């Protein structure tokens, strides 16, 4: 696993009541018992860590937040777009 994925998994574990060590890119976020409020804090931490802004609305089911891998992909694409694009 690359550095982005490792960091994201660390952030996920930080916000889990009972952190697990078997989290892979295929793990669904729903399996981690992450609730909407946890997700808001996770998004905040990821944004801070990578200096990006993730367009995220707690009212919508977002494809990007289905699995750990999809979060990693979204973060990588936002990082590639750069800070200017992330603001749009």
């Amino acid at each position: 696993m690359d550095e982005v994925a490792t960091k994201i998994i660390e952030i996920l574990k930080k916000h889990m009541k009972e952190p697990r060590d078997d989290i892979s890119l295929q793990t669904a976020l729903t399996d981690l018992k992450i609730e909407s409020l946890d997700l808001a804090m996770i998004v905040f931490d990821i944004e801070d860590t990578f200096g990006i802004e993730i367009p995220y609305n707690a009212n919508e089911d977002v494809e990007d937040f289905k699995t750990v891998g999809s979060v990693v992909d979204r973060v990588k694409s936002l990082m590639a777009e750069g800070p200017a694009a992330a603001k749009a």
Partner: protein
Amino acid sequence: MAKPNGARRVVVTGMGVVSPIGTTVDEFWAGMRASKSGVGPIEGFPPEDLKVLIAAQIKGWDHRSRLRHFQRDKIIMHADRYSWFAAAAADEAVKMAGLNVPFDEPYRAACIIGSGAGGLVTFEKAYRDLFIENKRATHPLTLLRIIGSSAAAHVGIEFGIRGPTFATCSACSTATHAIGVGRDYIQHGMVDVAVVGASESVINYGTMKAWQALHVLSPEGIFPFSKKRNGTVLGEGAGILVLEELEHAKARGARILCELAGYGMTSDAKDMVNPGIEGPREAMRLALDEAGVPGTEIQYLNAHGTATAINDENETNAIKELYGKHAYKLAISSTKSMHGHPLGAGGGLEAVACIKAMQENWVPPTIGLDDPDPKCDLDYVPNVGRDLQVTYTMSNSFAFGGLNTSLVFGPAPA
């Protein structure tokens, strides 16, 4: 038995406190027995250019260990400090009442926990982050921490209370209004149990600056009724009661601490900062009338006693107008001299002081009172508390805006 007018009677079966002179009821009372002062140099943030450098803060209190056993409220550890105080005080009160958690009849219970200002410390941090640190966002829980109803919501979640749940907000009368409203809900049959009171934690740079600008804080200390008094001292904490309908408490074999016999509320409708005499007097009169006892039955009165020049003089005059000659026989104290002025939470802490006075037949003192103001010529129990047979007590809370509240506590009904 209901009251002669058929009203359901309301008793107190639990109480809890977090204060600068003790973070449980026992410690709080021991602090009063020792004439302890909770006032000290401000800690926790850089005082920068503040001129007033003292406050009554709760120091060395670990919310993590105090709230570790919380089960249903998953984010209590992420809440504002004012919600921690409320949660800890409510936990003590509910345990003392011996109620099952979650509550057995959740829709027959109310949770009314007010706050004068909500999560102001969180507010300041968020604005510093945005405006000074140029952060791109506030912490995601900022809003939930700030809202003035979050303490009531946190407590309701943890204890499984599903009836009326909200906060009161009336500056220094907040807790007393909450206690009164909870009492009314029980009396009118809406609920059988109510967790009531208030919590406050606002001591930060911005709050100190705002109070300083109003010129009502003392840079030296809080000396109610004294000639040298020159303002109040900000405090923090929570005071929570469990109120219960008399027959409900009896049926489950609860230990009844006292009856909440009377409640009065008025508004001066006159001035934001200068309290009247008539409004406070009428609030006290309404509370006495409802308790159905003459003023001569009250032995101890816990005064609002903020140590501002005008409050202490006007409160003294209001007491004299209502009680007449008995005013000079009353034992009166301002326990704010010890725990500081915890703003909205004041009436909660002071209700606990009244109930303890009845339990132990001992009245707490007004400390720092060596040289009384000649205009304040009643018995304020100077400096050390004393033994006194206490059957009925009154607790006053008078707020900015002229919002007056008064409670009367009496013996547990036979």
